[in-house]
């Protein structure tokens, strides 16, 4: 039984049916992120995710990037545990007042050069939580943001597209912070 499961996982993953077009597009996108990162950074891209007050919907889709359908790690996109190892901070949620300091500190702990990606409608301007006594607003109200990925939550493919456009901008010489 166990052998069978290992085989099904590692030999012919998931593809009883032919890969769907969106899967192919996805692999291409992820590969592009990996290549551009390598060209620009000379290595894989390290991302530190920070939930600055989200409803956790955005986290679910960021998680999905690591499932075997997307498996972004094989393309050189890694989610790292410490901001000290990160190139990119991927920030979700409206920034709550109770999370503001933690976000600032995480930003400061991230070495230069670094980029900040704000994922989700809340991260842009607070979304439907804007105006609350407990919410600062979007991520850019607290730290500088390089790219915003819309969606509530953005789908895994939208997140990958966002990373590609970030890296392309970086590649064409937009300075990192």
């Amino acid at each position, binding site marked *: 039984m166990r052998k069978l499961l290992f085989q099904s996982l590692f030999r012919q993953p998931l593809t009883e049916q032919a890969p769907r077009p969106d899967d192919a597009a996805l692999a291409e996108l992820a590969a592009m992120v990996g290549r551009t990162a390598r060209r620009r950074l000379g290595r894989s891209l390290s991302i530190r995710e920070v939930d600055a007050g989200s409803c956790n919907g955005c986290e679910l889709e960021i998680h999905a990037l690591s*499932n075997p359908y997307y498996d972004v790690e094989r393309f050189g996109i890694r989610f790292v545990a410490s901001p000290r190892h990160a190139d990119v901070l991927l920030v979700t949620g409206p920034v709550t007042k109770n999370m503001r300091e933690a976000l600032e500190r995480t930003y400061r702990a991230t070495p230069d050069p670094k980029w900040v990606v704000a994922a989700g409608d809340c991260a842009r301007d607070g979304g439907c*939580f804007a105006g609350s006594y*407990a919410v600062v607003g979007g991520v850019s109200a607290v730290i500088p943001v390089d790219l915003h990925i819309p969606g509530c939550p953005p789908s895994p493919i939208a997140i990958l597209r966002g990373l590609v456009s970030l890296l392309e901008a970086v590649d064409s010489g937009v300075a990192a912070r």
Partner: protein
Amino acid sequence: MPRLIDLIRAGHRIERHHPWPRAVVDGDTWRTTAHAFADGGLSLLGLWGEPSRVHMAVLDERTSDIGVISLDCPDRQFPSVAAHHPPALRLERTLHDLFGLQAMGIPDSRPWLDHGRWQTRFPLGERLDASVDAAPYQFLSAEGDSLHQIAVGPVHAGIIEPGHFRFTASGETVVRLEQRLGYTHKGVEGLMAGSTIEQAARLAGRVSGDSTVAYGLAFAQAVEAAQRIAVPPRALLLRALMAELERLANHLGDIGAICNDASFALMQAHCAVLRESVLRAADAAFGHRLMRDLVVPGGVARDIAGDGADAIRAALDQIRRHFPALVELYDNTASLQDRTVSTGIVAPTLARQFAAGGYVGRASGRDHDARRKPGYLPYDGLRFEVPVLSDGDVNARVWIRIREVEQSLALAYQILIGLEAGPVQVPLHNAAEPCEGMALVEGFRGDILAWLRLNGDRIERCHLRDPSWFQWPLLEAAIEGNIVADFPLCNKSFNCSYSGQDL
């Protein structure tokens, strides 16, 4: 021992509160109720406030009656329930943070959601301006030889929500865990007050993203109860279909993630594939992977797509084909069982005391599922079982999820077969007089309570109580005496919501 119905009779009954009764009582009846929680005859389902009033939702364990007991407190003081019944403690600390309502005799009066950073105090009560004063929070002390503290969070190593855990350990063994939450507090109930029903429905669907269907449903049912609206049968079935897909996706994700934290990544990979197939089917059928903003007061926002039923059936078939092998793998992997069996035990008495819902309660002998008790449509016409175990360990919480995956699969198939043509939404009324409604809905994590008062097409006050309120404290109890290294595993087996309880 008083029955709920007697307590309600002792008070002044409020008209226009549906579907269960609400009564305004005096201080003595309020205190009697608090004592009855301690005796175990009644369970606390929720405790919330208004600027000079407190409410508690009560379940009578013997008769299964539900009701709301309210106490007017013009001087902003009320007798503490937590003084007799610990599950009320964090809720009473929150009542003070948000409304400035003081529970007299509360055993712990530290703030809970208020971290001193809002520039205001009592934001939902009589507001006071406040300077930002992040005075250090006083953690409980634990003293003894060779004890050390480990502080974790609010930003964690993984992709998870923020919260702070303070461990006191003796060597490797956890002597005490103290949680500090509130980091994701967004002031949802403040935003809802005065908003339209539509805006509030969107907010309700964003309280806890993994339970967006269940929250949407709880909110919608409360509005429909207040306005006494009957939802068309097709809409009821589509709602239940979405709710079971949400349960499937979350349970599959959890089973994989728990095994991953027990260092068995293979299971995670397989479960994640099945989870993804559910999300894709949901996207094909309803146009959104998490099915957000689809359950709305009056029905559902859109009908299932033409080929949606086929997409869902294909995902269900895939799970039905592959899941049994994964269950067998879980059952037969000694290294996994070694980690999950007898780890993080929640005693049945504690689960009962806290009226813990979902897999946390049902893994510790508490036979409660809101789809059955109080029950709501369309579940009375569907066949399903509610699995209950009594070991209360990580393993039992995994098995409850496994059994519930099987049940949700069966339910989803039944619903697809039963879907008949018809309307999927009815219009809301614009009632002239204020009315109140309430609902208890079974999300994947447990029962979500929604209570609201409508005034025309506006929300006057809405309260949403996440199941995590009564589960987080049990995690503190469950980890005691376990090794620090088992915390991630225990934590994952609870998978409590931060955003849902921080609100």
